[in-house]
């Protein structure tokens, strides 16, 4: 019994490391291309989709639809691009992303509980 509990515990730790760090890195290949129809849903602590692909050197408009009333979801920040926007509840808010060089730019709420990545390529 003791051994079983210990093995379960260690497996849990391995699972946490794998799922949140190792698999999360592998998952980075999957990103969604931003176009006029793409809506980024802000609800339940996550942006959906949370990896958005845009073209380098072009201004892009992202459409955020916020459905979470908590104040945490009120703002979306792109700190590296110095862009921030107040998201209206249950509405689409357009956020203009200036032309940027290729690279990955994280975006998040003020508290950094909501997290996403803007992939510029």
């Amino acid at each position: 019994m003791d051994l079983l509990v210990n093995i379960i515990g260690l497996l849990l730790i391995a699972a946490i490391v794998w799922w949140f760090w190792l698999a999360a890195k592998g998952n980075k290949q999957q990103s969604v291309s931003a176009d006029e129809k793409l809506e980024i849903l802000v609800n339940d602590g996550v942006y959906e989709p949370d990896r958005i692909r845009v073209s380098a050197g072009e201004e892009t408009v992202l459409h955020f639809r916020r459905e979470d009333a908590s104040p945490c979801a009120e703002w979306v920040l792109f700190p590296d691009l110095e862009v921030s926007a107040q998201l209206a509840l249950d509405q689409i808010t357009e956020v203009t992303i200036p032309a940027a060089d290729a690279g990955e730019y994280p975006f998040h709420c003020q508290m950094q509980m909501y997290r996403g990545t803007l992939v510029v390529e």
Partner: protein
Amino acid sequence: MSQKEKQVFALSGASCAGCVRKIESALESVPGVEDAKVNLAEKTLSVVGDVDQARCIKAVEDAGYGAKPARKDPRELREEQKAEDQRHYRQLLWRCAVALGLGIPLMAWGLITGEMSVTTPNEQLAWGAVGLLTLAVMVFCGGHFYTGGWKAFRHHNANMDTLIALGTAAAWLYSMMVVLAPGLLPEAARHVYFEASAMIIGLINLGQALEVRARGKTSAAVEKLLELQDTSALVLRDGEEVDIPLEEVQPGDRMRVRPGEKVPVDGVVRVGSSLVDESMLTGEPVPVKKVEGDSVSAGTLNKNGTLIFEAQKVGAETRLSQIIEMVRNAQNSRVPIARLADQISAIFVPTVMIIAVLAALVWFNIGPDPRAAHMLVVLTSVLIIACPCALGLATPMSVMVGVGKGAEHGVLIRNGKALQQASDLDTLVVDKTGTLTEGAPKLTDMETDLDKDRLLALLASLEAGSEHPLAEAIVQAAKEKELQLSEVEDFEAITAHGVRGNIAGKQVLLGNRKLLEREGVSEGDWPSRAKALAQQGRTAMYAAVDGKAVGVIAVADPIRDDAKAAVARLQKAGLTVQMLTGDNRATAEAVARQLNIDEVHADLQPEDKEKLVSQLQDKGKKVGMAGDGINDAPALARADVGFAIGGGTDVAIETADVTLMRSSLHGVADAIELSRATLRNIKQNLFGAFIYNTLGIPIAAGILYPVTGALLSPVIAGAAMAFSSVTVVSNANRLRLFRPTQTQGE
């Protein structure tokens, strides 16, 4: 209103593809519509063309639907958010009340009777019922934690919801296992923890409710700015006043502002004069006189006269809108000091989960009995006490309040980086002209054997044709005295000497000593007077009439009334103040002496200013540069922090790190004091959040057990976590009490 742009309307009642066709074809019949498209997902209608807004709305309504102009007005957005916050606040309190309504009686039962164990079938039944009730409470009051945690999990992400969901679910599952299969656990471990799940959910909802309240206050400054914006304006159309919504005002519209009314948009006064209170934009308490040709800004308050002015900038173009936009962007920008907290936040939750599992294993392997119960308590407490929110909120909340507070005092901070660097400055380089002095030379002294007014009239007549800045000061002085000027004959400007001409048959000279020598005029006793004036930082000139020196006059760029006090404030704050000027050393030193400035750099060319800033930086100084934002642009950009003084011209707002809306060096001192106060607040918050987590997690893991003989209750852990983020937000709100030292002293 007609305009050839795209107009967007919010639709109501449209729900299917059929509605789309109906609305779009209804719009085709409206004159001027070039294109009309419905976006069913957004429930919006976009109309392109030279088209009347009201007719579009009418067409949609005739088709059986509703339409109104889509508004993205920040004030409305803020109002909606406030109403939503209020609703959310009540919802959280309600959830809290329900959860604590179950949790408190259960906890009281446990404390009073001590009977929380499951030994008999009856107890199994009773606790089973309580377990189901707890589940209902968890779903009703804390369902969002579980859905949020699950969604984040699917995205390989973990957040605060994950911790709460795992902690409360672990306590509930363990308790249900005790109820359903007590035989699996030793007798001492057959203890239920339903009260912990309910209490944690209740307390965290309470904490979040208080946080919603406290966070609402952090944006008070922007709200104040938004409230400056009127919603309608009185526009003069065909000689009549028409009250129209603000968004319909066009550049070129003439508008009337009565005493006590706010100026609705930026423009130029065409008729009338009045005192206008601009303190809300500039922090300058004294109202400014506005006459024909002067510009007025949206949001300022007309005090005593009626003004008719022409709109020049409307909507997002107004200075007020730009200030609001800049403040909002700055409020959400990153501060370099928060980088470590950002890095920790990114890995925080999974790390806490690992610590929780490790702590549980330690208790299982080497802890005293009942091991299973201790394992659960430790696991739950660690998960619940860890607070990523406090860490995440530490910086943004302080920046939000600090930047907003700056705007209230006419100090616009570009971003978090500028805020942090302003707090570290040790040297301030100040451009003399327009910053320490008024920037417009004035006649300061006149000593003569003749009648002063007569001489002034002669000299002003002579200088009327000259374009030299000093000449302007003399002409202006004559104008102020309403002196009659005469025609000049044979006017000649002699480079590096002065001017000469004949007025009403008299030969008049005005210039330096070299001019008198050149013209063979005896200087008399005047050089000693001229020298005395020069020592006071004034530019002295000799006047001669018909070959005889008759006096000296002195022109100076007067020192601003508040410059000395501002320099003293900056020095008190530990900064070395250095003055830069293109003037000659004697004048510069005289000004510096009067202001008690530490170091003077005179005879500079414009490009030298930038070099000087970089030389100071090479010596390891943290240099701030204050200038008017136009002539000093390269030096402002080179400095660690560039302060643009001068009423916020567009150029300055766009380029400077800190823009001071009022033309006073006190603004720099305000900005530095505010940045230091904000950074201190951020450090307190970060320190608090780090200490809370680094102490809280080991305590929850049972490190104090050898001393206290007890583990931290998950309920206490929940309370601590709930109030840690409230504490951070409340501490940030303390910054709202910030007052610059100048105001305190007044």
